[in-house]
Every structure is written in structure tokens, then in C-alpha cells.
């Protein structure tokens, strides 16, 4: 097991634990949930296997669901985002998406912003759709998704900067 992989596992554990212990209990402005664990799916290295990402998403989602008693909504949102990440990468980075490690550094900021926001937005859209699960709440779902995605995007952007600037 190489050093980089150990470092990534430790980092993942830290993020999951901080989600469970801090961010699960944090409600900004009374309605905004902070789901910092989405950053794990964003920052998962392109050199690692895509199949493991889906399994990883399932595991992380399940842990969050068990802790929040949300019965699979986080799991479904996580595995969907993990499954679609490759396409989102291609959409956001274009040709650069095939270059390993080219994602975060050395790419244009607009590409990175699109990539981050798309994953967060998609994850939250699925999460809130499953939470409300009624067609008459469609406007509420979009409103919640929009507000939550903006706030979560800012938090995750800051966290990723902290991690990578180190």
C-alpha cells in the first residue's frame, strides 16, 4: 500500500468523522444542511478505479444514512453522483479530463467551478427529491437544492483549497 493511498484513506476518514460529529448537527440559517462529505466524491483521484468510487460512494452514503436515519437517500444520491462523475468530468473539463491529476491544478477556474457545482447540485437534487418524494413539492425541492448547493459549494470549495494548498 503506497503512502499516497494511506494519506487519502486517512483524509477520507477525517472528512467522514467531521461530517458525523460536526456538520450533521449544523443547520445554517435554519434550513441549510452542510454535507461536506460530497467533497470526497469530487476530490476522488482520477487515477483510482471508477468502480471503487461507486462502492466508496455506497459505503459513505450508508454511513451518513445510518447516522442521520435518512434510510438510503444519501446512499442513492452518492452512488448516482459517483456513477455519473466521469460524464460530469468530461462535460466540465473537456479534453483535459483524460489527463491524470490535471483536474484540480492547472485547469481553468471556470471548469473547476462547473465541476464542483454540478456534482453538489446533482447530489442535493437527488437527495431532496427523495426526501420530499412528492410531485407537488417540486418547487420546494428546487428551492432547497439551489440554496443548499450554493452554501455547500462555498464550504466544499474552501475545504478543498485547504486540503490541496497544504
Amino acid at each position, binding site marked *: 500500500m503506497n503512502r499516497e493511498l494511506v494519506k487519502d484513506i486517512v483524509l477520507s476518514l477525517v472528512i467522514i468523522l467531521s461530517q458525523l460529529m460536526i456538520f450533521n448537527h449544523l443547520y445554517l440559517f435554519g434550513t441549510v444542511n452542510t454535507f461536506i462529505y460530497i467533497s470526497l466524491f469530487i476530490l476522488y483521484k482520477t487515477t483510482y478505479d471508477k*468502480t471503487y468510487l461507486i462502492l466508496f460512494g455506497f459505503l459513505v452514503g450508508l454511513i451518513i444514512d445510518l447516522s442521520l436515519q435518512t434510510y438510503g437517500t444519501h*446512499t442513492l444520491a452518492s452512488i448516482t453522483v459517483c456513477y455519473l462523475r466521469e460524464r460530469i468530468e468530461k462535460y466540465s473539463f473537456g479534453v483535459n479530463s483524460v489527463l491524470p491529476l490535471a483536474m484540480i491544478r492547472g485547469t481553468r477556474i471556470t471548469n473547476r467551478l462547473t465541476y464542483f457545482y454540478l456534482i453538489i447540485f446533482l447530489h442535493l437534487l437527488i437527495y431532496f427529491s427523495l426526501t420530499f418524494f412528492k410531485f407537488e413539492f417540486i418547487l420546494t425541492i428546487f428551492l432547497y437544492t439551489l440554496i443548499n448547493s450554493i452554501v455547500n459549494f462555498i464550504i466544499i470549495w474552501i475545504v478543498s483549497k485547504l486540503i490541496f494548498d497544504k
Partner: protein
Amino acid sequence: MQSIINSIIKNRNLIIYIFLSFISFNYLYNNSSVHYSGLGKVGTFISGSTSNIFAYINSYFSLRQENNKLIAENLELKKIESQFINKSDTRDISESEIDKTISAKVILNSINKSKNIIVINKGKLSGITSEMGVISSKVVVGIIKNLTDNYSSIVSLLNTDLKINAVLKNSSTIGSISWNGLDPRIVQLNDIPLSSSIKVGDTIETGGMSFYFPKGIPIGIIEDYNNTSLEGYYSIDVSIFIDFSSLSNLYVIERTDNDEIKSLLNE
């Protein structure tokens, strides 16, 4: 086999995703009452829709069977109807009695000649004899002319040679129906004296005074009439109840009293 394995390996992400989604949905379905009822509704909708589609396709393929069943049922109903008419008609019991009803399918039909003939898929072997009447559900079609073992030809109502005894339903005035060979939707009612009162829309039915048809089988309604004839009779156009170009199932009927009347006439 190798290609199947290759295809599974190639699509492993999708397979894993579907599998894990299924587990997650199952988890959601079993633990949350909101999702339980929501997914239950979706399940009911899907199963209802697919069953509907399947039933629709299935019904299309069994149309022929259904059709035969309906014809048989129709035949039974006709027998019951004739029995009922016999019981209720106290004026002349034998007049409306139908002895035999044989269903048949049209295999040849024409409406664009002056002497139109219809051919059906039943003949001598089915018990059909010459000069039996032919009706379509409730309307007069024609009379059996020639027969082979399995086929019969019918002189259609749209044949200038045919004359059928008819009666005005309202006034019981007797006349005869024939066709002038022009419009296949219109036949002519003759021999109605100018002294009778008629109006457009009056129903014309068989009079029962022939060997072919019992009394009361509908033919059509009066569409137009002319009372300027010097011969003392109306010239009446009758619109036929059915479209002769779309005939498919016919019933060959025979009156029970035919033999008796014929033997009486021969004496």
C-alpha cells in the same frame, strides 16, 4: 460466452450502480412510510399500465377468436329472440317464426353492378337450401340463389332482379322493395297507393308475405318520395340501414312454415 463476460466487464460500473441502487431503494422502501406508500403507488401504476398494454396486445391477437365467439352468441340470441317473438305475437304465430339460422362469412361482394351477387362460405353441407333469406344482424340482405357444397351465392338487395315484399311499419301498407341500379345506399319502395299517408323517416320492414323473410325485419327508412305519378302510386326512395360495401357476417334464415305453404300452393 467470452463476449458475454467481456460485455459484463465492460459495463460493470452500470451493473454495480443498478445493484446498489436496488439495495438503497429497498432500504428506503422498507424503512420509510412515505417512500413505502409513494413507491407502492408507482408500483401499482407500472403494473397497471403494463397489464393494460399486455391485455390490449393480447386482445388484438385473439380478435378472430372473439369474433367467432360473438357470432355464436349472436346466433343464440337470435334463436331466443325468435322464440320470444313467437310467444308474444298473438296475431299470427307462424308468421314470424324462424326455423333455422346459419351464420356465414362474406367472401365475395359487389355493389357497383346492376345485378350484384354476394358469395358466402357456407353451402349445402351446412344445411342451406335455395331461396332461403339472408340477413345481416337485423337488416335484409338478399336471397340464396345458387349453391355448392361449401359456398352459396346470394342475390343481393342491390340486384335489379330482386323484389322483396315490404311494409310501412306505421300504417301496415304493403308494397315491394326493389333497386333501380343507381345508388347502392338507396332502394325503391313500389306499389304504395297515393291514398296512404307517408312521411320522410318512416321505417320500412319486411311484410312477411313471401317464402323468404318473416314479418318485421327492418330494411330502411324513407328518405324521399314523389306523389306526382299518374299511376296512382308513390315513388319512394328508401335509405338502407346498412352499408352493403362493409358486409362481413351474415345469417341465413328459413321460415318454418315454408314447406307447408308450398305444399298448399302446389295442391
